[in-house]
């Protein structure tokens, strides 16, 4: 009983230390947390890792990997995101032929109207479904195209 009480009071004091440590160590703890767990923002929001870059002189095209990530395994449908950056030097219209799975074959043609922020997709690969959206981001423009999984 005595020991329990001692344990109780010590734990109670410890909570104040936890409280102080939470704020003082916030920065280092959060980096630790991410390092240890390897957490990332879900590719459904972030767009996924960048697979390749095409240099077009005044601007660059960034191809993300196709995202089908499910909770376990893969989903039947997903998307691929293409970024254009920096925004300041983009032409008014961009026409690109995109090979999203890097198999050497063109999968779709993208006509992106930068000014109106609209796009048209012509699919060459049956896995390419439709345009999912065009987005004006802080330092880039992004276009997402819906895909069917193999």
């Amino acid at each position, binding site marked *: 009983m005595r020991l329990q009480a001692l344990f109780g009071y010590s734990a109670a004091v410890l909570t104040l230390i936890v409280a102080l440590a939470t704020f003082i160590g916030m920065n280092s703890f959060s980096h630790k947390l991410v390092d240890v767990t390897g957490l990332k923002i879900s590719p459904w929001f972030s767009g996924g890792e960048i697979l390749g870059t095409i240099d077009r002189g005044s601007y660059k095209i960034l191809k993300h990997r196709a995202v089908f990530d*499910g*909770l*376990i*395994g893969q989903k039947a449908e997903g998307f691929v995101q293409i970024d254009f950056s920096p925004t300041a030097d983009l032409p008014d219209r961009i026409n690109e032929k995109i090979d999203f799975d890097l198999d050497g074959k063109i999968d779709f043609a993208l006509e992106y109207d930068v000014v109106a922020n609209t796009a048209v997709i012509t699919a060459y690969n049956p896995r390419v479904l439709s345009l999912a959206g065009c987005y004006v981001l802080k330092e880039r423009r992004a276009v997402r195209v819906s895909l069917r999984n193999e």
Partner: protein
Amino acid sequence: MLQGFLLGLSTGATCLAYCAPVLFPYLLGEAKSIRQTAWTLSRFMLGRLLGYLVFAVFAWLTGNYLNTLTDRREMLIGFIYILLATLLLWYGLGQTSVPCAAGSLRGFAATLAQERPALFPLLLGLFTGLNLCPPFLLAFIAAGENSTLGHSLLFFLSFFAGTALFFLPAPLLGLGKNVSQLKNVGRLAAAVMSVYYFYSGLLLLWGGMISS
């Protein structure tokens, strides 16, 4: 596979809520130690699993039949989702009694419990496994979408695994008040999930209408 597991998880509390009134009085009345309870429980669960697998075969047959019936399968399933969601909501919020096959077992149960005590929980499980409670019907529909018998069996197996999680703590929890609060959670979860299935059903219907 995963879908089945998730469905099991999401409705497991409801399943427990429906089965608890059948299971707990028996567990509490019969078993003495936790180990004995666990043993009874595992026979009960085995019975349930058997019941589920029987249903997996049915679900597959029905799914195939539906396929030959119409090419607007999506719309049909959407429609059934909505119907079932309504049922689920009704069970969740209404004061209906347990639609569990094991409920109808009572008279017979007494005799059986006397003569074959070892078999009893197994049968009890089998009958609760064969019941027509709403989460189960949803699993039925979802499994019907599977193309092969193997998939259908797998689906029900994982559905079973999902719901089983809710039964594991049962031997420890089996005390009067907790059961009733658990029942409330189960019922309300059924109501909450019904809204989700209702919405999914609407989307399926909508998708079917657009594509046709």
